[in-house]
């Protein structure tokens, strides 16, 4: 027997089974096969696992799955709609803001949380906001440019 949790993932009601020590990250990737959310460090340092939970940006590796009852969880899989990329996804492509891509889902969710809260951030605000998302490939400039391209 496992613990049954009811939550909403990307706007759809969702039920999953977990143990008390399982993280939200493990459940997303292994139970729900939502492997867009990446595992890097597993300790809150890299941001590869960033998701939006109840409107707040969190590291899925630092949330227990048993905490997610009734929660509203948004992952990178929910960004596009009707076969159309989200404007941030398109901007990342247009600006070549990714190389290996492992940081990208986390950075997309971090950028989405930023624009949801502050629709018109300046460059400094963007750079501070994404400080919890590490990228070993791009040097960040193209990522920052992509996000700035989406500022209304």
């Amino acid at each position: 027997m496992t613990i049954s949790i009811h939550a909403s993932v990307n706007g759809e009601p969702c039920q999953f089974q977990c143990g008390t020590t399982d993280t939200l990250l493990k459940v997303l990737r292994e139970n729900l096969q939502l492997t867009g959310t990446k595992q890097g460090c597993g300790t809150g340092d890299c941001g590869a696992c960033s998701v939006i939970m109840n409107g707040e940006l969190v590291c899925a590796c630092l949330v227990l799955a048993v905490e997610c009852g009734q929660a509203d969880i948004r992952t990178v899989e929910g960004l596009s709609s009707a076969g159309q990329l989200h404007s941030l996804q398109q901007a990342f492509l247009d600006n070549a803001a990714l190389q290996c891509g492992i940081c990208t889902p986390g950075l997309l969710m971090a950028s989405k949380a930023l624009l949801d809260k502050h629709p018109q951030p300046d460059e400094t605000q963007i750079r501070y906001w994404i400080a919890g998302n590490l990228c070993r490939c791009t040097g960040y400039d193209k990522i920052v440019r992509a996000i700035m391209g989406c500022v209304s």
Partner: protein
Amino acid sequence: MLRIPLKSGKWFFAITFSAAGTVIMEYCAPVTLAEVCAALGAASGTVKVFAGGTDLLPRFVAGVNPPALLIDIKHVPETREIRRLAEGGFVIGSACSGGQISAHTELVRSWPGLTEAMDLIGSVQIQSRATLGGNLCNASPAADSVPALIASRARCRIAGSDGERELPVEDIIVSPGRTCLRQDEFIVSFFLPARNPRSADAYLRMTPRTEMDIAIASAAVNLTVDEQGVVNECHVVLGAVGPVPVYALPAARILLGSRLDEEVRQRFRRQISALCRPISDKRGSAEYRTDVTAVLADRAAMTAYNRALL
């Protein structure tokens, strides 16, 4: 692995067993203070209070055994409220997150130093989860909010299985990683005293990187000035330069009665360095920490002073 779900009343309760049938970890999320205290009092094995989990969960990943029981306190309303009292003080729930604290404009206006200290913790992601109570009870010598909390003269409301008590924040940490709380006790909230006019605080830390790093030295200053701009109350607390935060009383006394003139500041900086007992490690030598703490305390004092005059 066998896992059994249980629900008792409104609270969520769950347990995970190993293949051998031993309990790996029970988790419960009580919704009242009395339920937390009952759970703490009834626990027989290792028990941990769980707030944001940003200190606890990385430890599980590092291989530390999870406790037999994890009590999630953040569904108890008293741990999540920020409330201004009629006499001007504030009550801040122990499980208030950094994000919640920064968003409270009245609190930020009254306590710019404490709130900027909390805001320095981790990234946006960490700010969504990390709590004031967790930062204190983790008892790290480098915890950012703790020097500012002590300088604010905050008091803790502590609840346990046999009642409540109140302690000043500086009594909580006894050594790195250890608090004076009994296993059946937890911190419900903090009480910040009412502000006199012309009071302000400030917090500064030194980290090798600008973001996502832990302080190698820090300083909090909370002071009040009179109508002539003379300091008449002052609290100075240093972080990361000893096993527990240093309440720098002899240094604070130097600022009393002054307008922070250069000669006073020189004596202040020397006294601060004399009070530091840092370790040397790969992140900073003891000599460097001692020097930089004096600079941080001096600048924090100037910032608090200028804020108090506004």
